[in-house]
């Protein structure tokens, strides 16, 4: 809804404007949807109220925190569960602060534990990581100003990548998704006949001396077409029209026209013959 968006933008702006300049470094300043987690919001409130992190006026801060949650709800910004958990924690601490200290415990020499302690520890830890993030940010910017000698083109050309296990998973998923997509295409696609395939391959052989067989297979849009391509290749080999060979063990299989079969007449005949054979998987001859 346009109206709501407008409102949203407006308030986001206010939030940004209110943010202390310390965090205001343009680039990583803001997540548009208000705060990156409850601890973030809490730290912001503490800074805004100019109170000490070691002596948080818990009632005041809790009230403000809840107000922000209400604001976020009003603006239809999804309030994540974490924010609510923090709200509960704050209220719990506030209640504990209201209770009188246990005189017996104090008499027994037990140290008084501030109900806010755990929260303060968490806030401090969060702050530390934020400062660490700041440090990393600066390091990266600085390092971005440093240039190395580029790898010469000839070494780079075989575009290799160094991979981790998640790259493996991604590659596997991609292959599986592709296999699925192929299966879907198969249903939609007009079925190619062996005769058409034979003619197609022979036409390719007219223009090119050698064809990588893998390349032929890659042209196949479905498993069925793959099988037909394979049969077509077999057929051509059987009829001594082509010679297949490998340049090296495990190398790609290459296919080459046999020069002895070059008489134009016979080729035309073959094409005709093949085209008469429309759906048979094992053509005559």
């Amino acid at each position, binding site marked *: 809804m346009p109206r709501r968006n407008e409102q949203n933008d407006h308030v986001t702006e206010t939030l940004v404007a209110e943010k202390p300049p310390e965090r205001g470094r343009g680039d990583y300043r803001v997540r548009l949807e208000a705060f990156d987690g409850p601890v973030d919001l809490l730290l912001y409130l503490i800074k805004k109220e100019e109170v000490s992190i070691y002596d948080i006026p818990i009632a005041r801060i809790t009230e403000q925190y809840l107000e922000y949650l209400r604001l976020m709800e009003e603006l239809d910004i999804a309030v994540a569960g974490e924010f609510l958990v923090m709200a509960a924690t704050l209220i719990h601490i506030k209640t504990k602060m209201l209770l009188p200290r246990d005189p017996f415990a104090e008499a027994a020499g037990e140290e008084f534990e501030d109900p806010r302690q755990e929260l303060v520890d968490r806030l401090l830890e969060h702050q530390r990581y934020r400062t660490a993030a700041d440090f990393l940010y600066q390091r990266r910017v600085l390092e971005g100003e440093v240039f190395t*000698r580029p790898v010469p083109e000839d070494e780079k050309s075989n575009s290799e990548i160094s*991979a981790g296990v*998640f790259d*493996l*998973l991604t*590659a596997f*998923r991609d*292959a599986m998704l592709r296999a699925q997509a192929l299966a879907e295409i198969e249903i939609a696609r007009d079925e190619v006949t062996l005769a058409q395939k034979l003619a197609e391959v022979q036409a390719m052989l007219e223009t090119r001396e050698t064809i990588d067989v893998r390349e032929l297979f890659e042209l196949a849009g479905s498993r069925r077409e*793959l099988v037909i391509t394979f049969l077509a290749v077999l057929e051509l080999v059987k009829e001594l029209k082509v010679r297949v060979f490998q340049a090296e063990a495990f190398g790609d299989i290459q296919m080459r026209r046999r020069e002895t079969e070059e008489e134009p007449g016979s080729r035309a005949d073959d094409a005709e013959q093949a085209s008469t054979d429309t759906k048979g998987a094992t053509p005559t001859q």
Partner: protein
Amino acid sequence: MTVDELKPIIEAILFATADEPIPLKRITEILDEDSDEAIREALAGLVGDYDERAGGIELRQIAGGYRFSTRAEHSEYIRRFRKQQPSAKLSMAALETLAVIAYKQPVTIPEILEIRGVSSSSAIKTLLDKRLIVAKGRKKVVGRPMMYGTSKEFLIQFGINDLTELPNLEDFEDLVTS
């Protein structure tokens, strides 16, 4: 700028740009506020410095431009170094084939073809050469095709203890759905 101020800048530019010789004209275009005279002098100074040092690098005028290169007398060591270089790097095709083998092992070449949709024999050869996969006996089906699986070297190179440590689709979904 003075010649002494220009020298490190020109040195940095020549170092950080590709292997091709850089013509004087391109440098004067970048440093357009400085006189050609000063730039020429800085370049001559750099060439002289590197000659004097007689280190592993020299700055030479070649094919109408300036280029850093190593000296011929050290080529033997560089060649040795390049040869020894362990290449943990894989082409995309090899990586994908390796992924299929890692997740589907033991698996035959026709089965890999079925998943990838393309022939993978050259990728398989690469993976065998790099000892990332090994033959795992023959499958008891027609044609008795060879089955492949990942090797110990694979575990080492990918930094995992055993195959159960490979991320699964659940780990992946943990990351995408948030």
